[in-house]
């Protein structure tokens, strides 16, 4: 009687472990696929951004992850991931983001181009928080 109980319990535990392992493997595979897709998207976006940057901006971006933009009015802005800082005495910081979501480098490219071509629109759109 007790031998059957041991066999039954063992079989149940093994079956449960097999089901759990399969579920876990599926989740890990799915997460890995999502991460790979995101990484590929980031690399693509980075390549596009680099193709638009001037040599000076390119070395700033490669070394520090940000770059400066000088607008037609002569104002200097620092385009960083997730924020833009006006490089004057007040050092105002702006939050402006893409919708729907695109990789960070695509967002930085959009901010650079808007600043270079239409600073007033940038200032009217961005949220100044400092």
């Amino acid at each position, binding site marked *: 009687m007790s031998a059957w109980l041991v066999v039954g319990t063992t079989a149940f535990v093994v079956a449960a472990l097999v089901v759990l392992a399969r579920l876990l493997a599926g989740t890990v595979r799915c997460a890995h696929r999502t991460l790979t*897709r995101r990484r*590929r*998207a*980031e*690399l*693509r*976006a980075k*390549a*596009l951004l680099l193709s*638009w940057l*001037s040599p000076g901006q390119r070395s700033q971006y490669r070394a520090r992850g940000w770059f400066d933009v000088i607008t037609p009015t002569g104002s200097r802005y620092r385009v960083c991931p997730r924020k833009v800082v006006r490089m004057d005495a007040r050092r105002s910081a702006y*939050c*402006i*983001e*893409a*919708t*729907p*979501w*695109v*990789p960070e480098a*695509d*967002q930085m*490219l*959009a*901010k*650079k*181009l*808007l600043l*270079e*071509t*239409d600073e007033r629109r*940038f200032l009217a*759109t*961005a*949220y100044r928080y400092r």
Partner: protein
Amino acid sequence: MTGRIHITNEQGDTTRTWDTADPGTIREIEEVFREAQRAGRLVYRQAENGKGEQVTLETWDPVEHTELTVTPRLVGG
């Protein structure tokens, strides 16, 4: 000659091309411009000084402006 337009999206970007001598492919890119405009997105070409210059359907020259980028819509965070 072939032109290219990079449309930024969640995959980084999607590239569409057109043949400057083929009105059919040019019409397809004009539709990309219209879609971008409807979505509040801007289209740029690289000017000679390396800076961006905004291009609209009205100002776009398919033979001259052969490298374009559609940026995402930006909103205040």
